């Protein structure tokens, strides 16, 4: 049953050094505040899973929290490279980063398998590409009925999933809408989960067949307004495209990145203070 906690409490209690952590949100509803809190608490040796590492993992990788990254597209959307991700892969700074690479289809199916308590997923994928040459986690199997060859990937089963959503009620039932990505699957695939939300309300007033995670499949719910910034929360605020562009300059050098992270993230208490510090 979900506990209503502060983000600091939730990260402190539920994410441990060495954990496999999936922070999901496909462009929309990226749990940026939770990413900051993981950096602030200096979690280490994490295996980070995320389809699109985005700024949230660029920050954690640059701060040395990660030993491994499982991902399928690692860029700054509409802008260019993730400099900290590239620096870690190309130069091992601040520490070597092991990577495991997939396609979006591969990861989406692997999350689905995880949520379904299956050990693997089957898809029409990866045929003719070079990724299977590098990763034993991409195999090919035969259909037992037709003999067709299909790709298989192991299920994703993170220790912790972290997502951001629009609303939760006081029982910890979570409602999201708009582009909902793989967040439901990530939470259902994980042993533990943290959901940050824009607001905690008395009643969800969800439309029929809305995307809802019942409180009893969530470990902790934390109210963090604007907690997805610079990503967005449909119905609350728009994507801060200018911050995505600004990140390119902030993250380009190691010194500039560390200076910015220390000043705005490590030396602030929480996401509200971060926003006052970094965004004015």
């Amino acid at each position, binding site marked *: 049953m979900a506990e209503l906690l502060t983000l600091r409490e939730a990260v402190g209690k539920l994410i441990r050094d060495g954990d496999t952590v999936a922070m999901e949100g*496909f*462009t*929309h509803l990226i749990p940026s505040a939770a990413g900051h809190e993981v950096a602030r608490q200096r979690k280490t040796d994490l295996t980070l899973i995320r*389809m*699109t590492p985005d700024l949230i993992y660029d920050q954690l990788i640059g701060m040395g929290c990660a030993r491994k990254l499982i*991902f*399928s*597209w*690692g*860029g700054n*959307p*509409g802008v260019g*490279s993730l400099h900290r*991700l*590239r620096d870690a*892969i*190309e130069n091992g700074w601040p520490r070597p980063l092991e990577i495991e*690479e*997939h*396609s*979006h*289809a591969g990861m*989406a*199916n692997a*999350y*689905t398998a995880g949520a379904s308590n299956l050990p693997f997923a089957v*898809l*029409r*994928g*990866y*045929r*003719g*590409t*070079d*990724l299977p040459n*590098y990763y034993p986690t991409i195999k090919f199997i035969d259909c037992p009925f037709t003999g*067709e*060859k*299909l790709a298989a990937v192991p299920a994703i089963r993170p220790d912790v999933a972290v997502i951001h959503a629009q609303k939760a009620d006081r029982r910890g039932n979570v409602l999201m809408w*708009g*582009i*909902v*990505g*793989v967040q*439901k*699957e990530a939470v259902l695939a994980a042993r533990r989960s943290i959901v940050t939300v824009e607001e905690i309300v008395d009643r969800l007033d969800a439309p029929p067949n809305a*995307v809802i995670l019942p409180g009893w499949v969530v470990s902790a719910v934390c109210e963090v307004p604007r907690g997805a910034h610079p990503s*967005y929360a*449909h119905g609350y605020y*728009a*994507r*801060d*495209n*200018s*911050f*995505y562009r600004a990140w390119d300059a902030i993250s380009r050098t190691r010194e500039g990145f560390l200076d910015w992270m220390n000043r705005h993230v490590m030396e602030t208490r929480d996401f509200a203070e971060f926003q006052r510090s970094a*965004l004015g």
Partner: protein
Amino acid sequence: MANTDYTADEMMTIAAARMLRDEQVCFVGIGLPSAAANLARLTHAPNIVLIYESGTIGTRPDILPLSIGDGILADSADTVVSVPEMFRYWLQGGRIDVGFLGAAQVDKYGNINTTVIGDYRKPKVRLPGAGGAPEIATSARDILIIIRQTPRAFVERVDFITSVGLLDATTDRRALGIQGNGPAAIVTDLGILKPDPKTRELTLASIHPGITFAQVRDSTGWPLKAIEGLPTTEPPRPDELAALRDLNSRSKRADEKAVT
């Protein structure tokens, strides 16, 4: 003859838009593919169905999204599904007529690299990676690629096959169990390349106005051939140019306004 009051990028986007037909179902990559697909929708293909991998189906944005999952894509969609559903039921489901992709590097056989320049384990340049492209490239009936033509981008053989094109001269997609036909055309800022029906090699099939074959050849990393009687691409028509520029300026204004 050629109206030169347009840029090479405008010619490229308009030429790409023209390749889409009304009522087609088009799985759209962000950036150049998205611009061309929306231009098609705003001009000759009002009933084209645009799908983005973020889960938005039948989207009709009035401005170009910066990211693959901008709010405008959800707001203007017929429906929004989860990302697993998008890849399982819609893309893999075989419902896509045209997969419309960008690329960092493309080779003579239309194979796409968006992963690394150089060796995978010791990359010279680390690129973003696969995203949705590998399965778009195999599950969509046909593939269109839009990319600016340079010798660095157009190579004899890609350093890494992120997404299959037509593989090589001897390996058939069908033999690998791949269902889609693969690249039907590569639209660039210099012309349009299509695979030779026999050799599968990308061959110049149309050259944009004011461009010479020598220019295109020098921008290509393999000895480029052209089809017999190489036609010149029809220059942008005023209505096409106006629609594209409207779209771009609306998008720019919205982006500036959104700055917090």
